[in-house]
């Protein structure tokens, strides 16, 4: 059972780390604001989600696990709102050019 939990954790956290790496790469390499935002949200949503999922088998209680999930949900909410605002500002700036 512990072995299974460990395997799930390792796979999920490594996958999450890959999403973070890919997101960072996209942030550095993509050509404009919108595609960069797209890359960034992948790291936030999926990357952090997978890391949280991978940590869940090892938490010392239901409350701690719930806290981790809430952290993930809050980061998604903040990330989605912030990228909306950045995208809107970028589009307005584009129109003025």
């Amino acid at each position: 059972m512990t072995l299974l939990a460990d395997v799930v954790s390792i796979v999920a956290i490594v996958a999450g780390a890959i999403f973070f790496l890919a997101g960072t790469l996209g942030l550095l390499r993509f050509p404009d604001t919108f595609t960069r935002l797209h890359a960034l949200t992948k790291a936030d949503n999926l990357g952090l989600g997978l890391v949280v999922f991978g940590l869940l088998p090892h938490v010392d209680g239901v409350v701690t696990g719930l806290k981790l999930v809430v952290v993930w949900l809050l980061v998604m909410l903040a990330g989605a709102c912030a990228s909306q605002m950045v995208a809107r500002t970028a589009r307005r700036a584009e129109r003025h050019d």
Partner: protein
Amino acid sequence: MTDLLNAGLAALIVALAIWAVFARDAFAAVVGFIAYGLLLTLVWVQLQGVDVALTEAAIGGGLTGALLIGAASRLRGTEAVARAERPRTLVRVAAAALSAAVTAALAIGVLMLPDPAPTLAPQTMANIATTGVGNPITAVLLAFRAMDTLLEAIVLVFALIGVWSLGPDQAWGGRPGLRHRADPNGILAYLARVLPPIGIIVGTYIFWVGADHPGGKFQGATIVAAMWLLVIMAGLADAPPISRTWVRVGLAAGPLVFIAIGLMGAATAGAFLAYPDGYAKPLIIVIELALMPTLALILALLIAGAPRRPVQP
């Protein structure tokens, strides 16, 4: 493995610090500084100083970052002019040498600390039972060194008065900053409706849990203040005029309650800020409860800035 992580963290922090100093654009430097604060949070976690980490994230990265973003956007108009008139090489070299000397002195000071470093931690742990709280940091801040915390709260009130005094004369007593306008159906207004209930609960939780675990009124108050600022920035509510009675009362209440309890200690327990036997925990809770709204008010109004809009009679 941990050594590798620590080395990477240290290298990143030094690189980011250098970048923030050398960045040409004030806004970019501020963003670098905020990221620097977040990395510093990780360092404190790594050093097992979770209380300090929380404070660094809330105050160092968050609140100071917000203040600096405000300052950078105000300076944007004059930045090009300021850059054109670069100080002379001699002045620049002297400034760099002075900064390097300060850094070197700090580094030598840290490296020459005796090993093991002098610590009062055992005394704190030996006497923590008398305070009734479980978190040694809270015991230090509100019992063993309560004077420091009291002065800290008073200094913050003075800082706010300093910020207010930067406003123009005719705006004195008026509302701070400019009126924020945002699309009432936009994403910011949405966030400002969804997040505050969650943020207030999280802030109160961090405040309450501070008695026995990392947390406390300062970190909690920062989160509550951030929620209020979010509502103000989304245009859902306006910042209050600084002459409002409830603002003034709120600002004075925390330190006054603290001082009153301190004087009571002088009368009943023989020293200013001493707690009578058995009453330490309830009195600490009363002080924290009184300080938390005051701190939230101060921190939010510090960011809201100097009064700029006179109240219409």
